[in-house]
């Protein structure tokens, strides 16, 4: 279940990470945010981001254009 969505399509590094961080700050523990972006670098960056902060990267889908991350807040 997704509690919040964030569309970062068209934005380059580091904006998807920054906006995700800001959105997560307003959410409660265990809530899930779905981030959509087109920045190819974010595929690795979101893993590192979640790894550093203890958030759970529930899923990562890549349809060749858009990348969709589901992240559960720590």
């Amino acid at each position, binding site marked *: 279940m997704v509690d919040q969505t964030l569309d970062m399509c068209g934005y*380059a590094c580091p904006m998807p990470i920054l906006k*995700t961080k800001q959105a997560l700050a307003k959410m409660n523990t265990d809530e899930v945010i779905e981030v959509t972006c087109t920045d190819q670098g974010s595929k690795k960056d979101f893993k590192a981001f979640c790894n550093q*902060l203890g958030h759970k990267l529930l899923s990562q889908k890549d349809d060749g254009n858009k990348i969709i991350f589901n992240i559960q807040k720590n």
Partner: protein
Amino acid sequence: MPNSKEMTVIASKGTLDWAYPPFILASTGIAMGKEVTVFCTFYGLNLLLKDLSHLRISPQGNPDMPMKMPFGPKWFQAIDFSQKIPNIFWNIPGMEFFATRMMLKTFKNNGMASIEELRSICVEMGVKFIACEMTMGMFGFSRDDFIEGIEFAGAATYLDVADKSSQDLFI
């Protein structure tokens, strides 16, 4: 202290292109839960001025800077003019301004945030900025020229902060 959650950046360059790395890394550091301090020294002081609209790129000082047009048909955009234009061309008045405009357009086309936007995110997220007092005096800046909420100090203050941090980047 390999796991210290502190990070520092020394920002020493004052061109538009080199303004990006300190702000990108500082804001990302904060986003990843670190405490971040950016020490702005020499030309890096420019990054803390209230008005950032004067920041330019210097094609003459960067002969390897790819020079591709941000408009026109695909084949045209693929041409790298840096390999075709003699460096003396950049001495012509107005050419640096033109190149800066093209770079800004390229940034925008690629979804990059503006420097103003990135800086205000850094400030909002709590990046600490230190303006180097010595270079300030040398270049004739006054405290009023800079944005609010920054610290004015010197090398010893920076090194004291860096002593506790585990990632220190010189840009």
